[in-house]
């Protein structure tokens, strides 16, 4: 069982020994963090070789998280996707409500192995923060979560959940007061407290080995989904879709399909008010290669290398960087990335809610909106797999305001 739940990339294609996926990745960190980051890498290598680690993680994933997650066909939603068949990988049904728990449990076990007693994390939508606070409660670890002040307001439910779980939540007031700034502040904390603290990084970005390690802990998504869709549909999908902020749920879904050249891998980026308006966070669509948060990848920046402020209605995707492996997959042409606007995502959120009784997170709704488009391109013979990375409870305030649900006379109430 454990062999199917913890499945590091078996072929070891990328990254190379320096943590590079082609031209992207690496380790751009201050000297003060080199020893700690190297320790994480060394401990991860030891853990991978230790059957007891895989067994303990597998037990947690089954009996705590509830894996494998379901694969749900959504025919009423699919009527709006050109009649293609659409299956959702239900990461929203995991304990804590998103895919984030997969990585968090793996890294929490590493934290214990390293003998560290304190965990810090960044969070955008709060899903990674909630998952981290959950694992820290489970393992008796001290927990501090950094969250941009803007995000603490738009994701207030998750702030309350983290505090209920015993975590300290620090609202970050620097910069754009969103995910990027939360990561900056977490790095500052880590430099000062590295002796006893593990930085439980939440996405497939950051310095090597984080892009690899986080990917490996999420590979289970695609490994399960590939098997499930073969059983249910009798063939591989024409396309696998996921939203991309930092890119963790997308890499988790995509990775098991990399060798399947007939499966298009489609990442849906936050297009905000539209890429042309400049108010977006579509890093792969509109960015250029640069260094942010410890690795080389596409970033949103000006010609002086200053990171520009991203925008998305979705706190979890509101990030001007992207994991280096996505940059690599884009450049070699193995994956494609398209921007989905706020409006398209919100319409898809409402559509799935009303056709299937599933309220997705705004993040995941970007992938659903992408599926509506790709389905129309493929037509009725198409078969789509969409990662439903999280549930939408946390977004009900944003959605209610967007659709005017608080106002009986509001247009959206119709």
């Amino acid at each position, binding site marked *: 069982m454990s062999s199917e739940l913890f499945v590091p990339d078996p072929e070891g294609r990328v990254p190379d020994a320096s943590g590079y996926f082609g031209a992207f990745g690496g380790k751009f960190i201050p000297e003060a963090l080199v020893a700690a980051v190297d320790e994480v890498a060394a401990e991860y290598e030891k853990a991978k070789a230790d059957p007891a680690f895989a067994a303990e993680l597998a037990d947690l994933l089954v009996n705590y998280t509830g894996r494998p997650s379901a694969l749900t066909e959504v025919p009423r939603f699919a009527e709006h996707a050109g009649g293609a068949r659409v299956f959702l990988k239900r990461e929203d049904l995991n304990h804590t409500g998103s895919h984030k728990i997969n990585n968090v449990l793996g890294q929490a076990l590493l934290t214990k192995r390293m003998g560290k007693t304190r965990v810090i994390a960044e969070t955008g939508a709060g899903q990674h923060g909630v998952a981290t606070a959950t694992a820290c409660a489970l393992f008796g670890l001290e927990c501090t979560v950094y969250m941009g002040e803007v995000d603490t307001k738009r994701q207030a439910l998750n702030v309350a959940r983290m505090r209920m779980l015993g975590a300290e939540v620090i609202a970050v007031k*620097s910069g754009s007061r969103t995910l990027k700034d939360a990561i900056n502040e977490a790095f500052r904390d880590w*430099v000062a407290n*590295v002796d006893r603290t593990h930085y439980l990084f939440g996405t497939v970005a950051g310095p090597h080995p984080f892009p690899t390690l986080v990917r490996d802990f999420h590979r289970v998504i695609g490994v399960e989904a590939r098997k499930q869709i073969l059983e249910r549909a009798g063939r591989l999908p024409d396309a696998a879709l996921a939203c991309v902020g930092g890119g963790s749920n997308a890499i988790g879904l995509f990775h098991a399909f990399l060798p399947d050249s007939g499966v298009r891998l489609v990442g849906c980026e936050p297009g905000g008010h539209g890429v042309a308006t400049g108010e977006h966070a579509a890093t792969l669509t509109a960015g250029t290669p640069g260094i942010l948060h*410890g690795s080389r990848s596409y970033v949103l920046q000006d010609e002086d*290398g200053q990171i520009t402020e991203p925008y998305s209605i979705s706190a979890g995707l509101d990030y001007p960087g992207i994991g280096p492996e996505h940059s690599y997959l884009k450049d070699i042409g193995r994956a494609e990335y398209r921007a989905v606007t706020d409006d398209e995502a919100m319409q898809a959120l409402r559509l799935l809610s009303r056709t299937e009784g599933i309220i997705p997170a705004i993040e995941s709704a970007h992938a659903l909106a992408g599926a509506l488009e790709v389905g129309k391109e493929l037509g009725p013979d198409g078969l789509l797999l969409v990662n439903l990375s999280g549930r939408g409870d946390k977004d009900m305030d944003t959605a209610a305001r967007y659709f005017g649900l608080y106002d009986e006379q509001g247009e959206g109430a119709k």
Partner: protein
Amino acid sequence: MAGNIEGLNSVLAAAKAENRAALVGYLPAGFPTVADGVRAITAMIEGGCDIVEVGLPHSDPVLDGPVIQTADDIALRGGVRIADVIRTVGEAHAATGAPVLCMTYWNPVDAYGVERFAADLAAAGGAGCILPDLPVEESETWRKAAEQHGLATVFVVAPSSRDERLARITAAGTGFVYAASLMGVTGTRESVGREAQDLVRRTRAVTELPVCVGLGVSNAEQAREVAQFADGVIVGSAFVKRLLDAPDLESGLDAVRTLAGELAAGVRGRS
């Protein structure tokens, strides 16, 4: 035109010959404005700094505490560009003759173009660069450009650096070694811990380069303490704070000059 690494080396050698530590001051360019920033940096040198580091403000200063973050914000909101930073280096050097280094994060240099940055910094009379988020493993392209243009590459070492890494880092560096006195970001501290002295001792064991200590030093007493065991004392946030706290620019410049004078006395206080 070649950069001023020789000027940097000779100032450090002169301080050593005087049996004192060198005083290294830091201020970001463009703070509070580009023109007034040049005045502040000049005041720092006139007050007694032997060497200065001009910060190239970055949108994401992950190694800086709140004081320098605030100054960087002010500079960036004021529209400071890399060309302004290089001009600041040139004007400060021309006005005082002191060696002037640039300190920044790697992405601005990468975006500007490594070769172009080194060439422009050298042409302005710059003495070198400190790039704290560029580890030695990723530094080859920069080091080649720096060497070609007569610029020093100053690496940062930390209390967590193991001895074999210290040897590797210092072998690749030139000018001096920046020893971080503690594990943390920039900012003033109540005291400079014993970690700094231990790190300087371990660094000295593997290199002939001068070792300057930074992070946390803010007053003459701390400067004197660090000067007992280090070749140089680096002060940044305390200067920035003088400018931030001043009611107007002139009194801020006076405060910067006064602090530099006090620190200069401190680095001469070897017992």
